[in-house]
């Protein structure tokens, strides 16, 4: 694929690796905000390519991870209703609520469906006029215009058997929340490329100034990440603050005015709870009153679900970059991707799952010392088919 294969190039990666090594003179801690970037880093072993001085910490940039437990429970309650078709992006289905996940609801008879796009839900709604189609509208700013479009179209096309369970979160308030935490260790950020495709990066400039950090808007391919890290290290080494844009092929300073307009038409800013972190002021979207009849929380009166998070899970610390996943005592034990205890183990972009899946089990860059694992194999050889 054009605009992709060339960014997965070994030679280019090696050049950037060397370039980073050449300019770094002291330890730096950089947070990639976005779960997609975390995914790339662990999928390609990019942190192994970095000099010891550069430490990456994984931010709260996965909507699956940060969707609060009570909202998962609400989703589960709604999906359990008889006349509901509950639609969701695939990776939300395995997120554990207090007792169940959406897969289990499906197994118990709930009509839970995976969709690729929010617009697909409108088709489903039109095809099932006597049932209510509820879409689990999670996401960061990137997904907001798509979700807004679905609601806007539903109103325009009078598709009244459609509703959304909104859990929209915003990146800049989360970054600010991290930066204002007394324990934070983040010295520079890789900004979330696709969020900025939509929103631009004007909002990041005051943040950079206020907290005196460099922010490099970065793409998602290995070469993007390495270049983003290179730029960020260079700024750190040079003592520069401000916003740089590595992902200029897809990000303009002002973002997409069309997308922003659509978001504003449908959504307004609100306080939001983040799983593992807590409520962050002005950090999310909710439906505007003109669209409130599409609000599943109102339609299904699931307003006050009470939940309690696992006391073991330190995903809040992980999401803020204070701890790494393998520092959690439950990591790889009670908490695995099959049986996640916290949300960061669920999504493949969640920091814990990424660490688990891509072998951060042992904090070693060499897998050769992993023989402690081999004692009692847990994986049964399957006659696969």
């Amino acid at each position, binding site marked *: 694929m054009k605009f992709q294969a060339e960014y997965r190039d070994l030679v280019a990666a090696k050049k950037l690796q060397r370039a980073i090594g050449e300019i770094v003179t002291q330890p730096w801690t950089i947070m990639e905000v976005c779960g997609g970037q975390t995914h790339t880093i662990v999928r390609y072993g990019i942190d*192994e390519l970095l000099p010891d001085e550069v430490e990456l910490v994984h931010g709260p940039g996965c909507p699956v991870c940060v969707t609060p437990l009570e909202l998962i429970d609400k989703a589960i309650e709604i999906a359990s209703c008889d006349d509901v078709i509950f639609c969701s992006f695939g990776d939300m*289905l395995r997120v554990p609520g207090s007792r169940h996940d959406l897969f289990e609801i499906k197994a118990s008879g709930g009509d839970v469906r995976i969709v690729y796009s929010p617009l697909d839900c409108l088709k489903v709604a039109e095809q099932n006029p006597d049932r209510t189609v509820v879409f689990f509208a999670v996401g960061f700013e*990137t997904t907001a215009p798509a979700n807004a479009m679905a609601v806007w179209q539903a109103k325009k096309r009078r598709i009244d058997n459609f509703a959304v369970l909104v859990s929209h979160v915003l990146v800049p308030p989360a970054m600010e929340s991290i930066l204002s935490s007394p324990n934070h260790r983040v010295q520079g950020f890789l900004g979330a490329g696709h969020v900025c495709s939509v929103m631009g990066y004007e909002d990041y400039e005051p943040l950079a100034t206020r907290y005196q950090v460099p922010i490099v808007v970065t793409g998602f391919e290995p070469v993007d990440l390495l270049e983003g890290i290179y730029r960020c290290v260079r700024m750190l080494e040079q003592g520069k603050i401000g916003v740089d844009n590595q992902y200029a092929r897809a990000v303009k300073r002002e973002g997409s005015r069309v997308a922003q307009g659509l978001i504003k038409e449908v959504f307004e800013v609100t306080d939001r709870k983040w799983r593992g972190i807590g409520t962050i002021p002005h950090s999310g979207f909710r439906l505007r009153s003109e669209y409130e009849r599409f609000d599943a929380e109102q339609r299904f009166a699931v307003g006050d679900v009470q939940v309690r998070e696992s006391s073991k899970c330190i995903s809040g610390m992980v999401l803020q970059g204070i701890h790494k996943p393998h*520092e959690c005592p439950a990591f790889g034990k009670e908490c695995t991707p099959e049986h996640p205890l916290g949300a960061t183990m669920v999504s493949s972009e969640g920091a814990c799952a990424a660490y688990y899946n891509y072998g951060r089990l042992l904090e070693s860059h060499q*897998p050769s010392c992993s023989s402690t*694992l081999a004692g009692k194999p847990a994986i049964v050889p399957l*006659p696969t*088919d």
Partner: protein
Amino acid sequence: MPPIADFDQMSCPTPRRQHERVLLGHGSGGKLSADLIQRVFLKELGNDVLSSLEDSATLALGSLEPAVDDARSGPRIAFTTDSFVVKPLFFPGGDIGKLAVFGTVNDLAVVGATPLYLSAAFILEEGFEIELLRRIVISMRHACDQAGVTLVTGDTKVVDRGKGDEVFITTTGIGLHAANHALSIRNARPGDQIIVSGTIGDHGMTIMSTREGIEFETALQSDTAPLNDLTRAMLDACPSIRVMRDPTRGGVSSTLNELATASNVGILLDEASIPVRPEVHSACEMLGLDPMYVANEGKLIVVVAEQDCQSLMKVMKQHPLGRDAAVIGNVTADHAGMVVMRTLVGGQRVVTMLAGEQLPRIC
């Protein structure tokens, strides 16, 4: 601040809780499947043959006296079964009938047996169109002809509408071991080379392209094919092959993880050498999937001693079903039980077994 984990005490993943109901993931070929097999089937039914979990059971058939377990007394036969529940019934490159024949033929072939006889049991949903059934059965005939096997016994059941899904087919196969091959998933040894017989993920992504809510247009075709001719040629040329396996449900990753565990070896893969069709690659990118976890229906994973690798590769590449064969990695003494991949950009990652179902990632 919580204590840092004690890595010396780190144990293998212990499920936090066991699911009380069957989930789709229990059929994914990944860890949940393994968990179900371990917890229910092997726990209650385990015996030496079943618990070996090879693609086919190997049975020694002597005369009735002396004892049947005298492994030397009669021909050694291979015996395997699989149910086929694929949707759609007809897909680019194949249909459920073809799959049902080739799937079982392949499980016989990869243990080194010559597939001979099949049974087929049909579970039909009331209301299923008989014309579609006929098309499937005709396709099974062609598939049997192609694979050189005979369908000798069968069964048909009908379930109430809404209690089935058009048609499920269970095929069971009998094959005959020609000689005492040492093929077993427990046989991989450090230094061995790992070969895949062609591009990976073709079948799974073809099926995915038809899945409601996900569907996309592509010229992709399922790779469903009978591998017995290829395996015969390979075993003739290279009787020292250590392991053969068809990476179906759960994909190459699951097969390799099983292999690493069963042989208690490590596996080191080279991402750049793994053959993936551009369309499979693109579709996986689009949905956030990994072709390593996607099902194949006409591919082999082969483990072979290093010294025989090149001659085997030559034989494979001469066969139409092995044209795109590639050495994708090697067996190591290090990191036993784990599959590690050297990535395109020179990093490393552990390739784990699929947890539940592979879900389209959107965010």
